[in-house]
């Protein structure tokens, strides 16, 4: 994985020193909150309901063991011994003190971690396919390109004051595991007919108040021109994106109002007059970045593992874990292990400092020192020998980290909601906890199969409710918490925005309603149909009828 060089390290040291001085001035009253707020936000420090919240960037969701141990150290020393992994693959700490913030950033900088690009109207921390370097269906490691964008975008003077925040997701695989259609820019690397690497460029996706799936503005951009093309997109956005209305300032609104065709024309025109050589990454630099991601440390192994197979045969629980949480690796004899942070009844995405330390130890010993964060708020050990999988499973099980529910109904995405967030209208976590408890029986969850529930506590949609197979949006209805259900959304290859089921429900009706939706699915499904496929075939009617029967 990528190691920060002297330039990166110097940048972080300077940045922390600068922030330390700014914090001291704020605490001494030399600058006002109005002056300080944009500064602390640019260092990832928000003020939430109960305390300050620090959002730590995890670029393209990749961590080393040392980095994970440092996150554990920070959670233990400066917070309450846990952290919350988010749908943007960042880590949020909810109980931070302003006076500790500079020291925390100092501690993080020792392992190349920081909170840069986690707030403000800049190009934010990038996300990528969490199975980068693992999946057989990828044409390249998408993190090479994500890292190139990171270096280009960090503190980019022209793009530090965009009309609104700007998020980019990158994948290099056939299957979209990075939700590229709901990003400001989604990049899908593939091999063009000519044989060269090329990006499909999607622009103007996003959730929030006005959700859109991003249209493709360029089918096949030669990969070497990535940065100049991004510059052209951002220039058109900077020029025409709305700054008068925060709710209409994202690029999705510009793309929708101009139309994808006209937007593309303007981007191409801008790109045509760009001196590409000045912007595009030199081959030498690309090669340097690429070398950081070259697979190393893999042993030559047989594709099958007797130890793995016999553990599955001997242990029913491990067999279930293998079915749901272990995925194939392109290197023979290896696998990737998904670590669910969704124990039914617990807070989705939360991870204790002790669990972080354990995951770091396991990565160090069994996964070539690497950990991934997936946007579904789970972790991954990406490079585990099949032979070691039973041992890793046992260690995870001992720490409450072996819930075998990846992609199942209890693997629920939930934002922090009204329990922590100043923007929220309603709670999301207790709703997730209640639903997960209802479906905690692993046999039941497996019988239901793939079903993604995504919950947001407000219309900003951090919990991706628009693209949940079942989406749940918390609303404030005459002063009470109510929940609006949508069905049929997806952030994957079959991306779609969910359709509203009917009037919002009070909190205590949500889990019974989900139960009714599941019953309809189990009754209506044909063969191996997933929930979302049954829904697409039948439409809303049978589901709506079941949930609102009492209202007729």
């Amino acid at each position, binding site marked *: 994985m990528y190691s920060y060089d002297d330039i990166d390290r110097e940048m972080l040291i300077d940045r922390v020193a600068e922030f330390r001085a700014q914090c001291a001035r704020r605490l001494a*009253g030399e600058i006002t909150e109005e002056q300080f707020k944009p500064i602390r936000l640019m260092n990832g420090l928000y*003020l939430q309901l109960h305390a300050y919240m620090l959002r730590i960037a995890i670029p393209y969701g990749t961590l080393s063991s040392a980095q994970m141990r440092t996150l554990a150290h920070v959670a233990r020393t400066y917070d309450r011994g846990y952290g919350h992994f988010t749908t943007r693959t960042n880590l949020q700490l909810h109980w931070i003190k302003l*006076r500790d913030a500079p020291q925390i950033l100092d501690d993080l900088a020792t392992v190349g971690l920081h909170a840069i690009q986690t707030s403000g109207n800049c190009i934010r921390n990038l996300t990528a396919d969490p199975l980068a370097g693992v999946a057989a269906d990828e044409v390249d490691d998408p993190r090479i390109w994500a890292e190139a964008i990171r270096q280009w975008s960090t503190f980019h003077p022209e793009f530090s004051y965009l009309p609104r925040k700007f998020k980019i997701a990158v994948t290099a695989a056939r299957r979209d595991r990075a939700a590229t259609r709901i990003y400001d820019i989604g990049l899908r690397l593939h091999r063009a007919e000519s044989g060269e690497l090329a990006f499909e460029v999607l622009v103007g996706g996003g959730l929030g108040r006005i959700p859109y799936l991003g249209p493709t503005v360029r089918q096949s951009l030669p990969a070497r021109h990535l940065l100049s093309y991004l510059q052209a997109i951002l220039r058109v956005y900077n020029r025409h994106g709305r700054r008068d209305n925060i709710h209409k300032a994202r690029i999705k609104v510009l793309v929708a109002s101009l139309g994808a065709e006209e937007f593309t024309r303007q981007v191409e025109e801008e790109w045509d007059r760009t001196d590409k050589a000045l912007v595009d990454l030199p081959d030498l630099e690309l090669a340097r970045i690429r070398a950081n991601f070259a697979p190393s440390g893999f042993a030559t192994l047989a594709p099958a593992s007797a130890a793995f197979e016999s553990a599955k045969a001997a242990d029913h629980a491990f067999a279930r874990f293998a079915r749901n949480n272990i995925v194939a690796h392109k290197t023979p004899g290896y696998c990737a292990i998904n670590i669910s942070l969704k124990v039914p009844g617990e807070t989705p995405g939360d991870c204790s400092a002790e669990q972080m330390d354990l995951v770091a130890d396991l990565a160090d010993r069994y996964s070539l020192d690497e950990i991934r964060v997936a946007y579904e708020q789970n972790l991954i050990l990406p490079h585990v020998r099949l032979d070691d999988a039973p041992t890793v499973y046992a260690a995870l099980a001992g720490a409450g980290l072996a819930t075998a529910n990846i992609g199942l109904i209890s693997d629920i995405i939930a934002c922090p909601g009204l329990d922590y967030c100043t923007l929220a209208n*309603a709670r999301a976590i207790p709703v997730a906890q209640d639903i997960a408890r209802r479906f905690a029986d692993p046999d039941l969850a497996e019988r239901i199969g793939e079903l993604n529930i995504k919950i947001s506590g407000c219309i900003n949609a951090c919990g991706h409710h628009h693209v949940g197979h079942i989406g749940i949006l918390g609303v404030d209805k005459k002063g009470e918490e109510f929940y609006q259900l949508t069905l049929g959304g997806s952030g994957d290859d079959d991306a779609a925005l969910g359709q509203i089921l009917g009037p919002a429900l009070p909190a205590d009706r949500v889990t019974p309603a989900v139960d009714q939706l599941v019953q309809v699915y189990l009754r209506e499904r044909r063969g191996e149909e997933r929930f979302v496929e049954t829904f697409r075939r039948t439409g809303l009617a049978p589901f709506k009828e079941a949930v609102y029967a009492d209202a007729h």
Partner: protein
Amino acid sequence: MKALTANRLSDGEVVFWAQGAWVERFGEAEAIEDDSRAETVEALARAQVTQIVDPYLIDIQPVADGFAPISYRERVRALGPTNKPDHGKQAIGGGDVELLNRAHGSARSSGRVNLIKRK
């Protein structure tokens, strides 16, 4: 009836106004009956830039043996997150915590004075 709340600058702790001082427990907050006095207190608080951040008035109402914020959001602030009963002021327990736990209704929009205007 109103109370004045803010977050403490140095650590973000939720605090309430009580006769010129800032206290951590809602049970010790001053219940301000007079609207013009509430505005005066808010203006005083705004000047305390090295102590607190973002002071604002909230509506409160009498409940058995005391007062509670009308807004659910403000009760969450006064108590702590509902998913972690061992975090926030609720962890300390006491009569005022029990009283807040018994209050119900009103999610976010109500009870924070000038919420929309302030954004």
